[in-house]
């Protein structure tokens, strides 16, 4: 009996170690959307786009929206922009839109040249403090919300740089598309790889 107990103990320890090692390699299953009953409506706003057109978030009802708060001075935001351009191109026909809200204090004089330099293919609005307050202050950028077709926040907001596949799996889930293996199980690249230590 004591031998059996000992074996059981060893097996449990081995299982725990295995689980622990899986966690350390950061192979994780992508998060699932919140149940619909738990989703909160994304606060509505009206902002101008680069053409001077007034845009309401509620105009996007019926579409899955990646709502990204960013700024021209934000390095991690710049890393995400090519991903969003790719998502916009790939999923627009499925009823998906990227909406970027710039939080630049200098306004369009800073943002328009940036849009041109980065050839951004999705709509950019100019944010303000009122919208920032509606979304929790937005002192840290990028901050991104994935909204379902009813304009509700479907996932826990992403504050800071996250993995491209996190976005991909969330978008695909809301669009009802079959998730790729890469988005179901992905190995998170260590942030240290993106941000190496300063050169000595």
């Amino acid at each position, binding site marked *: 009996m004591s031998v059996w107990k000992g074996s059981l103990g060893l097996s449990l320890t081995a299982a725990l170690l295995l689980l622990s090692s899986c966690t350390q390699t950061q192979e994780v299953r992508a998060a699932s959307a919140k149940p619909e009953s738990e989703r909160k409506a994304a606060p509505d706003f009206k902002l101008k786009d680069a053409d001077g057109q007034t845009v309401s978030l509620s105009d996007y009802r019926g579409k899955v929206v990646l709502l990204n708060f960013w*700024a021209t*001075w934000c*390095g*991690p935001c710049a890393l995400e922009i090519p991903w969003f351009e790719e998502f916009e191109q790939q999923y627009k026909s499925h009823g998906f839109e990227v909406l970027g809200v710039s*939080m630049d204090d200098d306004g369009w004089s800073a943002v328009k040249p940036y849009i041109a330099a980065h050839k951004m293919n999705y709509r950019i609005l100019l944010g303000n403090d009122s919208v920032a307050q509606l979304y*929790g202050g937005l*002192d*840290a950028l990028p901050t991104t919300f994935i909204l379902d077709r009813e304009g509700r926040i479907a996932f826990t907001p992403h504050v800071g740089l996250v993995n491209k596949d996190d976005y991909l799996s969330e978008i695909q889930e809301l669009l009802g598309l079959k998730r790729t293996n890469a988005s179901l199980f992905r190995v998170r690249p260590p942030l240290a790889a993106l941000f190496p230590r*300063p050169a000595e």
Partner: protein
Amino acid sequence: MLRFFACALLLPLCSLGQQNKLIVKPGQTLTVKRGETAKESTTVSVLPGFHVNSDKPKDEFLIPLKLTWNPGPLQAISARYPKSEDIKVGNQILAVFTGSFNIETQFKALPQAPVGPATITGKLRYQACNNEMCFRPSTAEVSLPVVVEAQ
């Protein structure tokens, strides 16, 4: 009321980024004779885990760190920033300051400056990031006690 509820829903985001990411400590009392110059060294300490853009960021869209002084009995003639360090963010090389560093300002006492103690004030504008996110540009107030002496 709407903002309150929105903030309550997004509470975890509300608490992020509110505090300063650096501490500014001006040097000790600066004594200058009327019409003469003197150097002052302001110490800036960036909190661990954060970096700020240098005074000369490599990308035109990034916000440089800049120390400016308000008009007073002393006039700031020039500022000297330390050498920045390069870090790689994605495929971009950034020129940043981390840890503790000094900014040297050369002041000149105006010939007509009132003799005696005074305080001059300034502002340090900066934009900080950590490895995952950036924080909105911020300004730290600086105040420096000075004494102007007669020639």
